[in-house]
């Protein structure tokens, strides 16, 4: 009998993230089952398009994979930063739906979530500080340690104990080691817990090329100038780093 993995992936995109995420929900679930996952979150970008399919195929009677699904989303805030939000309870799911409705109501093409709206609809939600495009990570990358503390304190204090975590990700990209160190130090200073995620974009390594094409359609057109200007995107990620795996990518020994 297969042992259930102690690691739970809390940040994962399916193809419903559109232009990022190169695997279908059922492919992610099948791979997670192979790896022995007991629980798995789906956090597509600004949407719950795949959430129902994910829940049914994960745990549906008769046809389910036996994996406990966690419903979530990666929200884009009004400043363009990213935040990972997970529904802990039914009320949290309702609030996540409300937040997304508000985001699409303000602009249906580029939905943005207001931080104040998040705080107003915080009940039942667990919030992770996000990827390297997260508000706190961006501040730390820019050397704004004090500003990062202020933002982290606001999330910690307004969301409440146990509802906010600093998110650590390491994809072997330049700057990841320093960012993980800075977030870990912030965690100690702010008495705020950390959680490691892998920001999964595909179920197996071989799907990275499709993901690159989705993220950078300029690849297909061979537009070198456009590619050059996209250095802040996922371009350059080692291919195996965003595939579903049994543990988060650790900081390499240095």
């Amino acid at each position, binding site marked *: 009998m297969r042992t259930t993995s102690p690691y739970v992936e809390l940040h994962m995109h399916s193809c419903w993230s559109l232009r990022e995420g190169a695997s279908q929900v059922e492919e992610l679930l099948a791979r997670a089952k192979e790896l022995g996952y007991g629980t798995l979150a789906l956090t597509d970008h600004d949407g719950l398009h795949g959430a129902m399919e994910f829940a049914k195929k994960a745990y549906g009677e008769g046809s389910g994979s036996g994996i406990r699904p966690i419903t979530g989303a990666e929200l884009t805030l009004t400043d363009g930063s990213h935040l990972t939000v997970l529904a802990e309870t039914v009320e949290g799911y309702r609030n996540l739906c409300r937040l997304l409705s508000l985001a699409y109501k303000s602009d249906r093409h580029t939905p943005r979530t207001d931080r104040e709206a998040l705080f107003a609809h915080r009940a039942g939600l667990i919030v992770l500080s996000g990827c390297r495009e997260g508000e706190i990570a961006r501040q730390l990358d820019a050397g704004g340690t004090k500003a990062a503390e202020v933002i982290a304190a606001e999330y910690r204090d307004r969301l409440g104990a146990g509802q906010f975590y600093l998110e650590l990700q390491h994809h072997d990209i330049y700057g990841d080691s*320093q960012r993980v160190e800075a977030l870990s130090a912030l965690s100690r200073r702010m008495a705020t817990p950390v959680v490691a995620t892998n920001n999964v974009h595909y179920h197996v390594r071989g799907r990275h*090329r499709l993901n690159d094409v989705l993220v950078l359609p300029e690849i297909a057109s*061979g537009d070198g100038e456009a590619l050059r200007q996209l250095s802040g995107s996922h371009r350059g990620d080692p291919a195996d780093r965003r595939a579903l795996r049994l543990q988060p990518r650790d900081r390499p020994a240095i």
Partner: protein
Amino acid sequence: MNLPLPAAVIADSAGVPAMVLVRGTLRPVVAIGDRWRIDDEWWRTEISRQYFALELEGGTRTTVFQDRMTGSWYTQQYTAPAQLSASS
């Protein structure tokens, strides 16, 4: 142009640099400040590099990478993508 220059690097069994040849002298690596990878441009000529920011005995700092396609080592001054983006 910040073109890579061929380098003589002795690595340990894990592929981590242990000695670097500088002006005819092998210098031991005393610290690795960071390491990162770049995998890119598979749609043209694929690039896959493992970079190391090193401190050598005597205090010299240098950045080297191993070309994962050929196994060869190079030195190259490295500018972070964000800095590149900001300056463009």
